[in-house]
């Protein structure tokens, strides 16, 4: 190939001219044609954040990774699904096994009482983003509530929450199904479907706590249709009052699913579920957001337990619902350490992706958020240091 022949929609002379210009520019950054010099390309610099500030808040006895760092309990059961839905009795047995396996307690009541008391207001953070087909299942949440009640927690001390109140209903978290349980979200509509009150103010604005925020040097302008889902623009993402004021303890209940070559489990469910103005964070700071937001006290010091709904999940097409990639993992994971739980969940999803040839090998970026979260002191990402208690039930 030489630089005098013409082809295609850009001719070779133009290409050489363009490439030469690019080469001049690139050589300024130390990049030249292959075989001539070593590549010295640097990755683009990440926007800065206030993640480090989270580390300045003194840790408490309740701070993540909680009572059982590096420990994960798992229970799997072949009959976890009946009639195309989680079987509540089987799920109850699976959850009981994971709670006992995690704590070593002799009864389910004493296992739960290690984490919550009747005085607590307990927020169950579910993930309803993908609608009724691929959200935290109401069945597992009912089982959790049942065990909490058996352990002395009054129903009116339990709150089911997520960022989007209206999505909770779509996913099956309704008053009819959960009588006596408060169901709430940060982004909300009134009965007429409007996001704003008579003064034109977003209802969501009253739900954010401007004293607690995640700052990142990246912003996005939202049009009027998008803003209700973000609540505010700018470089601040504010924590929801649900976590800063309403609840005293959080039980995090994500669903086992992928996001590209990584997963959206405990850390993602907490991080993106608890703050406003997330649209700007997906593209440049996904891993950082997952690792840094849960390191702030409203989450770090309130999350007592992570229970991954792995009854039915997905291995590709996530975080949205693409039924062609659904799979019945028939498993539940539990742990206080969200990083360790995510690591185990990540391995489950990765194994399925490799089996189905979605990937040939692990992506080098897949575990980035885990490594960052470990650096933030939230738990253990090193598989060698994680103790997994896996029970196969039948």
């Amino acid at each position, binding site marked *: 190939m030489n630089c005098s022949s013409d082809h295609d929609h850009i001719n070779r002379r133009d290409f050489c001219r363009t490439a030469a210009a690019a080469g001049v520019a690139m050589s300024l950054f130390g990049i030249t044609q292959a075989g001539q010099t070593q590549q010295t390309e640097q990755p683009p610099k990440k926007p800065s954040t206030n993640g480090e500030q989270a580390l300045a808040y003194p840790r408490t006895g309740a701070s993540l990774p909680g009572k059982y760092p590096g420990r994960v309990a798992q229970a799997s059961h072949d009959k976890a699904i009946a009639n195309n839905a989680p079987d509540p009795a089987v799920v109850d047995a699976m959850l009981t096994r994971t709670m006992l396996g995690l704590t070593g307690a002799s009864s389910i009541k004493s296992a739960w009482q290690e984490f919550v008391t009747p005085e607590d207001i307990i927020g169950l953070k579910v993930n309803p983003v993908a609608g009724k087909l691929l959200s935290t299942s109401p069945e597992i949440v009912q089982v959790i509530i049942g065990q909490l009640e058996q352990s002395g927690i009054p129903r009116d001390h339990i709150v089911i929450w997520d960022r989007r109140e209206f999505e909770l209903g779509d996913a099956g978290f309704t008053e009819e199904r959960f009588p006596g349980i408060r169901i709430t979200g940060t982004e909300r509509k009134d009965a007429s479907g409007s996001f704003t009150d008579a003064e034109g103010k977003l209802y969501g604005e009253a739900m954010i706590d401007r004293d607690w925020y995640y700052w990142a040097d990246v912003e996005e302008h939202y049009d009027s249709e998008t803003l209700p889902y973000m609540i505010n623009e700018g470089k601040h993402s504010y924590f929801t009052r649900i976590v800063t004021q309403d609840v005293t303890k959080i039980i995090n209940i994500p669903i086992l699913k992928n996001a590209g070559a990584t997963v959206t489990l405990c850390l993602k469910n907490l991080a993106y579920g608890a703050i406003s103005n997330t649209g700007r964070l997906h593209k440049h700071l996904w891993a950082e957001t997952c690792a840094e937001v849960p390191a702030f006290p409203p989450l770090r010091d309130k999350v007592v337990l992570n229970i991954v709904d792995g009854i039915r999940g997905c291995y590709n097409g996530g975080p949205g619902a693409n039924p*062609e990639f659904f799979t019945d993992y028939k498993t539940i994971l539990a742990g206080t350490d969200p990083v360790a739980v995510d690591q185990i969940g990540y391995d489950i999803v990765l194994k399925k992706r490799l089996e189905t040839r979605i990937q040939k090998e692990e992506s080098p970026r897949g575990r980035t958020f885990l490594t960052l979260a470990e650096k933030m002191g939230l738990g253990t990402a090193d598989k060698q240091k994680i103790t997994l208690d896996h029970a196969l039930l039948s």
Partner: protein
Amino acid sequence: MSILAAVLFLLSSGQDSLATLLPEGTCAGCTVLRTERYAGSALAGYINGGAELYKEYGFVSLTMEEVRLPGGEDLVVEAYRMRTPAAAYGIFSISRSGCATPDTAFTHFCGGTTQIQCAAGEWYMRITNGTGSPVARESSLELLRSLVSRTGQPRYPLPSLFAEPALAAYAGELVLMSGPLGVQNGLPDWEDLLDGAAEYTLHAVRLQGDQGILAELRFSRAQDAVGVATKLGVDVNDERLRVAVGAPKRHVLWTSPLTLRILETTLFPPDLDPYLEVLSRPRH
């Protein structure tokens, strides 16, 4: 894209033919339970972080309807208007899997038990049911056929490389990507190779039996072509078939200044030969 831009785009093209998915006379006895429309970045209100992938391909608008069939089963019907037929085909190509009913000559189609989907011109459409029952599947098909006929748009033409008879078996497996999120979903093993490249179109198929990947990569910018060539250790000005440096083993050929064909494979001659022959065919 702002709502205004999306509206202007729709008006200028005059093809907003699917603003209502179930017009009068369609799907007798069906009830529309809910209709939602999203344009531009408001898609995040529907699928949150998942919207980024659609935006990367070029999302314009979405109409979603929940439909109750006469027998009581519910369908979710989604019609995504994308910026180009390539964008619609791209999002379709990375969303399909296990297509029991394969691609057809009329449209890019994938039929599964609980979901059917297709790319027709600038539209990516899918219908999801919760049960996989024969009634739900048949109703979904009927509805999708109606939607496709209303778009009146032609099938996205595959690149000539993938129209070769030797690759006919792969027609239903071709994936099209145009950015990092597409690659994460469609060909995650190539994330590193394309890291830093900003404007490109990548068509790729995985060869049967884990034998490798055949791809055609078209760049819009010279610096992206040079960047990838650098990683492969080949000269962008060398128009001969070459083997890239390092692992995995990749045969590479620049067919134009901005077009690179890659055969990543574990095969050796003579099994390798037919693929090398396809790789070397001139573009037409």
